[in-house]
């Protein structure tokens, strides 16, 4: 029987079938950990007297609450400093490789996994972070877990799992100028809703996806959780193999040849059955921007803020009313008339080198609007070094941007990069929840080019118009 890629990876990882309604035990090939969701797991191991079963399959970094102005831990505050140093101690005690702040390859966990070649096709990859689906861009089954599950993986190298339903999202055609992978995934979330894929693993396919770089594919898979999905994945192809070849942890020599041969068998078979299929035309997708407090509250950038009454469902209506109140917006005003105070470019969604290159093209030779704070937070030490090699840092700094060290930063504002109450931000991150970027802060999610354009104009900006007018 023809199989989906998800089914193939699942089958290859079953350690024990679930009998009598029990969950199956699934083997975990790669486990990524960070400072915020792991300390209690290590504590659990110590209390129970358990060891880490395969410490070489777990990789650690610190990203969520690290300071980005400098690497001085005093800036992080006492509680964050404790979490950061605790991770170092735990890794040393249990024999786990840690890309700590002193390591030049430290960075956002979902950025360093792929760039070091730790992430590979066909693997089951988990992390105590909901944006783990990022790694699915390589044709792996990757998903976020809680701290109890982190402990479970550390001690057994497996997870108890029930098989998910499968959803195929085909995107075909050519994206218009100014439309990015971020717009594709925001459009999808707007279309199917923030719980539209709950219980499913999504496979993204079609010519639009195939035409994307690995980095674009990661942006798409990254936000699968924002549609409720367990994971998002894309079949590996030559783009994937080219990206991976020669990376630090990628297979070498004969292993590389054998690995690629195996990876080529992973794609969904012709005729494989999905529980749900959605077809999207690339030409229908315009640059997107969120207006509300949920990623599904999104519109085309040239549209107006919708009226709550325009939603059919009464629950959606009340959600829209709450969102407008929190966002201090009135229905009917044009999105491009909304002024912003802060611009944040970074995160596991859009903190990679291609994102920074795209943003730098927009800001080159221009100036950040008066009164706007604009920050660039590279996703990793490697992204930062590459950008500096290309002179992107100089472009940004000349335009009035702040050039920071790697970390999650203002995506979730656990460090000192926070909005103050009432401030409004154009952000390349993944969540516009109430208070996400700081208590009382207001977030508009956009792609890196539109965030850069917003920094220059001081308001939400249609990148197509901006590029046409050159301002």
């Amino acid at each position: 029987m023809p199989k989906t890629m998800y089914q193939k990876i699942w089958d290859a990882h079953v350690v024990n079938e679930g009998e009598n309604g029990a969950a199956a035990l699934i083997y975990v090939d790669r486990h990524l950990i960070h400072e915020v969701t792991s300390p209690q797991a290590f504590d659990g191991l110590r209390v129970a007297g358990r060891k880490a079963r395969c410490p070489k399959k777990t990789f650690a970094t610190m990203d969520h609450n690290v300071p980005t102005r400098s690497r001085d831990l005093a800036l992080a505050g006492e509680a964050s400093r404790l979490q950061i140093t605790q991770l170092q101690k735990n890794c040393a005690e249990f024999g786990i490789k840690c890309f700590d702040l002193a390591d030049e390859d430290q960075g956002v966990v979902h950025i360093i996994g792929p760039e070091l070649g730790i992430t590979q096709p066909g693997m089951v990859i988990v992390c105590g972070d909901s944006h783990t689906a990022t790694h699915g861009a390589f044709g792996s089954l990757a998903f976020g877990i809680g701290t109890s599950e982190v402990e479970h993986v550390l001690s057994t190298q497996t997870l108890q799992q029930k098989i998910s339903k499968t959803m195929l999202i085909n995107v075909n055609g050519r994206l218009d100028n100014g439309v990015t992978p971020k717009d594709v995934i925001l459009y999808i979330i707007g279309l199917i809703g923030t719980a539209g894929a709950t219980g499913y693993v999504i496979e993204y396919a079609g010519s639009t996806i195939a035409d994307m770089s690995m980095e674009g594919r990661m942006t798409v898979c990254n936000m699968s959780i924002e549609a409720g999905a367990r994971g998002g994945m894309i079949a590996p192809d030559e783009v994937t193999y080219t990206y991976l070849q020669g990376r630090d942890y990628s297979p070498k020599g004969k292993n590389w040849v054998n690995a690629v041969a195996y990876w080529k068998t992973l794609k969904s078979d012709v005729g494989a059955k999905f529980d749900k299929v959605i077809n999207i035309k690339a030409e229908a997708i315009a640059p997107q921007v969120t207006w509300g407090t949920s990623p599904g509250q999104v519109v085309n950038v040239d549209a107006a803020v919708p009226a709550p009454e325009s939603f059919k469902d009464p629950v959606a209506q009340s959600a829209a009313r709450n969102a407008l109140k929190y966002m201090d917006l009135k229905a009917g005003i044009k999105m491009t008339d909304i002024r912003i105070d802060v611009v944040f470019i970074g995160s596991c969604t859009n903190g990679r080198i291609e994102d920074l290159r795209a943003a730098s093209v927009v800001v080159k030779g221009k100036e950040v609007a008066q009164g706007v704070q604009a920050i660039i937070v590279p996703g990793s030490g490697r992204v930062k070094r590459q950008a500096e090699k290309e002179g992107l840092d100089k472009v940004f700094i000349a335009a009035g941007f702040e050039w920071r060290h790697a970390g999650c930063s203002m995506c979730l504002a656990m460090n000192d990069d926070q909005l103050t109450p009432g401030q409004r931000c154009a952000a390349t991150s993944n969540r516009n929840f109430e208070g996400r970027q700081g208590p009382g802060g207001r977030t508009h999610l956009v792609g890196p080019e539109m965030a850069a354009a917003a920094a220059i104009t001081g308001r939400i900006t249609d990148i197509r118009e901006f590029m046409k007018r050159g301002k």
Partner: protein
Amino acid sequence: MTPFTMLTGVAAPLDRSNVDTDAIIPKQFLRKIERTGFGKHLFHEWRFTDYEGTKENPDFILNKEPFRRAPILLARDNFGCGSSREHAPWALYDHGFRCIIAPSFADIFYNNCIKNGILLVTLKSDEVDELFAVSAFGASGLIAVDLEKQVVNAAGKKFHFKIDAFNKECLLKGLDQIGWSLQFAGKIDEYEAALAAQKPWVI
């Protein structure tokens, strides 16, 4: 983990959809290395009017009697969406919630709750509406949850719910799930031996 069998009490109605884990426990309270003490920060932004959490918002449901210490939370669609932080169920449990009833829950949050002994009951939207009506009776609006029978009793009506058999057993017995998985240690050994032979690049 404390077993969950039966529970009777009032249910605090939280009438919002897409309640995310950032709202359940904001990020500034995640900087701890223990599992305890998160309850006082539960729903911080909605529950308090000041950043320090000293001034209660009188309009928020958990600041009203008899819901301050309600053991059941009534919610709307997609409860627990967003971040995977297990601090959310830790905060809910620490505050005193043992059961949440909603039309749907986010996936990771669901797993996290089960592992902390919190029963999540999924009912149809119109059934949840009926329970919201029951909660409007305040202290007399008691709701009884029976996990063994998989039924919620309220206002003389029975609402049956489904739950995966394994999750049910874990909750009823308060099972140590790592201990349960470790009974298959032999099979994990076999899997790893085969993996090393067939896919040596997966070190």
